[in-house]
């Protein structure tokens, strides 16, 4: 099979941080090449460079053996490169049909467009994929899973030569993934080169013919899928083999009131009848697919999306939680899902970020901040969490992902919460930081804090959680108690 696309010597630096170092990848017509890598390994950056969204500092692209330099977005579309982006990159204000037809229109250099034409383009793709989508609905009104399907449809509305799929299945159910894999087979037969990006090992083996592993912005291993086993794949992804062994923190001996009790809580359209407990000193995992409601439940308990029904008790006391301020007052801390937009204020100093949630604590008379106390508080957090910086006055943007996440964690440690909720606490974090963060969680739990951890990282759930709860489509869907928790059982339930 001929090589469809080659990227050679791609190098990219952001600020001072090297995102990609002389990366070479290639993909043949009619094969699925899996680009595997942990979060933050540079997969998305590489794709954006090939699609022209970002410009590389060095390196070039070859299509069918011809050097095309560093293509712009339109160049790459004209060359037949299509990308399903991780964030979907849709237009919320336009209809499903128009979203699907948009790239076809752009490529056709249309001047005048017809609604009917857009609908028929969209209908054709949707039918080909055997999907059901309401074409006239605006994208802002459809579910996350449907949006992902729209993004897939948009990429396939054109005759594509090389298709990049950046984590296209995060919100999809098994059935939908299954139909996607049939489409992939079809495309392969048509001679399309497919680059499939995923960090789910099952999917990687199911879909791909060949695997290229990216770690810290460099290719560390490349070969036929058959040369890999799940273990060797994970090892080359992370640089080590994470233990799926359980290393649980000690539970408190004496009976204390549960740190968090939620009873039959619900919020319109999002979730309902959710009840569970997190004991003082307990680490409870909460897992489900993207868009299952796992994040929304966490945000409701914290006060961002106040609940409509039900009751929340923190350390035995019923608390009305209608805002984040009330959540914090009740003794809840929340490490959010999206570190860059929700967790840290990038251009502000490490010190400011560390005290952001405890401004009341460090302010004295008349609302004036006590600079001594601020420095002590941030120093304390920097030391406790081992944040690698020579000056806490530097902006958070100067830190690596792992250290930024420690800053977010440190911010909430400073509030001394009764309940700490973490949403994907180690996403995009290097192995070292991950181990440190999980150790800190165990330590915090042993000091009596109840921890609720939302995660889809199975080894992580197994490693730290006393219990694991499942969410599906906005409702609780069973739990695994102490001894039942195992990687196989969690995967089995998630894939069901």
């Amino acid at each position, binding site marked *: 099979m001929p090589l469809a696309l080659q990227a050679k010597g791609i*190098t990219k*630096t952001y600020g001072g941080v090297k995102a990609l170092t002389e990366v070479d990848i290639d993909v043949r017509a009619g094969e699925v090449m899996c680009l595997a890598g942990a979060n933050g390994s540079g997969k998305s950056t590489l794709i954006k460079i090939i699609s022209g969204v970002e410009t590389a*500092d*060095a390196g070039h692209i070859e299509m069918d053996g011809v050097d095309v330099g560093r293509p712009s977005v339109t160049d790459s579309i004209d060359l037949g490169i299509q990308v399903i982006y991780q964030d979907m990159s849709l237009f919320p204000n336009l209809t499903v049909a128009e979203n699907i037809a948009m790239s076809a229109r752009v490529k056709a250099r249309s001047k005048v467009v017809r609604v009917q034409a857009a609908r028929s383009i969209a209908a054709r793709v949707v039918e080909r994929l055997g999907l059901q989508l309401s074409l006239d609905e605006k994208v802002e009104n459809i579910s996350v899973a449907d949006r992902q399907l729209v993004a897939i449809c948009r990429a396939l509305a054109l005759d594509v030569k090389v298709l990049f799929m950046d984590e296209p299945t995060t919100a999809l159910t098994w059935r939908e993934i299954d139909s996607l894999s049939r489409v992939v087979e079809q495309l392969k037969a048509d001679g399309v080169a497919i680059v499939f990006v995923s960090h789910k090992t099952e999917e990687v083996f199911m879909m791909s013919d060949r695997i290229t592993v990216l770690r810290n912005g460099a290719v560390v291993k490349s070969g036929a899928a058959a040369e890999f086993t799940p273990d060797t794949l994970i090892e080359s992804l992370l640089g080590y083999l994470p233990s799926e062994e359980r290393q649980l923190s000690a539970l408190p001996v004496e009976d204390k009131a549960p740190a968090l009790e939620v009873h039959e809580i619900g919020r319109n359209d999002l979730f309902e009848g959710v009840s569970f407990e997190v004991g003082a000193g307990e680490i409870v995992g909460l897992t489900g697919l993207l868009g299952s409601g796992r994040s929304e439940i966490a945000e409701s308990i914290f006060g*961002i999306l106040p609940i409509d029904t039900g009751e929340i008790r923190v350390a035995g006391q019923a608390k009305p939680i209608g*805002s*984040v*301020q009330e*959540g*914090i007052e009740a003794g809840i801390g*929340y490490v*959010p899902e999206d570190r860059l*937009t*929700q*967790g*840290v*204020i*990038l*251009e*502000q100093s490490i010190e*400011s970020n560390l005290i*952001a*949630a405890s*401004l*009341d604590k460090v*302010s004295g008379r*008349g*609302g*004036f*901040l006590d*600079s001594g106390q601020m420095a002590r508080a941030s120093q304390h957090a920097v030391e406790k969490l081992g944040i690698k910086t020579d000056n806490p006055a530097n902006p958070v943007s100067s830190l690596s992902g792992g250290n930024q996440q420690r800053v977010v964690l440190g*911010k909430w440690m400073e509030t001394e919460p009764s309940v700490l909720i973490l949403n994907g606490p180690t996403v995009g974090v290097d192995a070292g930081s991950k181990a440190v963060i999980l150790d800190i969680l165990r330590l915090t739990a042993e000091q009596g804090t109840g921890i609720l951890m939302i995660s889809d990282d199975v080894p992580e759930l197994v490693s730290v959680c006393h219990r694991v709860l499942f969410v599906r489509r906005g409702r609780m869907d069973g739990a695994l108690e102490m001894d039942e928790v195992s990687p196989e059982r969690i995967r089995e339930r998630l894939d069901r």
Partner: protein
Amino acid sequence: MSIDTGRQASRSVEQATPPWALAVKRNGSTFGLLSLALVLAMAFSAINPDSYATLLNVESIAFSIPEVGLMALAISVAMTIAGIDLSTVAVANLTAIFIAWYSRVGVEQGQGQLTATLIAVAGGLLIGVLCGLLNGLVIAKLKVAPILTTLATMQIFTGVAVAITRGEAAYGVTDPLSSFGYNSLLGVPIVFWLFGVVVVAVWLLMTKTKYGVSSTMMGASRTAAEYSGIAYTWVVTRTYVLAGLISAVAGLVLVSRTASASAGYGSSYLMLAITIAVLGGANPFGGRVAVVGAALAAIVLQLIASGLNMMGVSTYIYQIVQGLILVGVFVVAFERKRVSEAISRRRRRANAQTSQTNQQKEHQK
């Protein structure tokens, strides 16, 4: 290994830099504005040696700075939270009209000069607070964009002023106010002293208090600030109340200085105030405190205004200059960033090449 030595080297370079140079680096825009002011002052003095650098002119410049400087400060404060306050001039005028009106009514009703003054000033400042409260609540609670809100309230406040004055100017202030507006203390106009006090107070508020730090965080990233428990409504409302209060002080200064007030006064001030705020370092996208910068920029703009005025240049030309400064600030910042990025990219490429050749050499060994 090689990376570590590199970092040590750069650190020792930093240690070798004298402290004053570091201070300049850290407060680059402040020093830039100060030197700009000096250069302008010298240039205009050279052009008009007989009239520009005279005590009289310096004093007249000092008299003219506070009004528009305060309005710029109000806008700068709103920009800290990624907002804007287009109603500042209207608030100042409304305040000024109230003070002028009460100066007359209070004295007519037999109140002492001092009592009438105090009530007039307190009432005027209260008007500023209420106007700011309206802005803040509409923006925070009704979720109307700051541009639209303050554009509409600008018209509403002006509308109130037109309705109560029937479109005419109100004349006269109490004796204490007029001496406050005319006199100097230690050679510096009292209104300028007041300006200085407000600048220092706002600077303290924005940098040293819970409110100030919260609002800067809110401006830098609203989402992250809200996820840290900083209450959006609280910060936004307080910010616009603060902006309204500062605008009211501007109104107090203008009515004391001119002993008159009208709904249509200072219509060109809005643009000037925005230019000053931006030149002073305020970022329309939020997250930057620029209080001292705004004060210095106000001085720079008044130096230019006075200089151009002496050269007999029309006010229309001065407006063009203002517009050019406003867009120029962004164009210069953009080009500077582009050039420095190009340089660092070239340096990176050169480094990559040398490291490649080094590797090749090592291979050959």
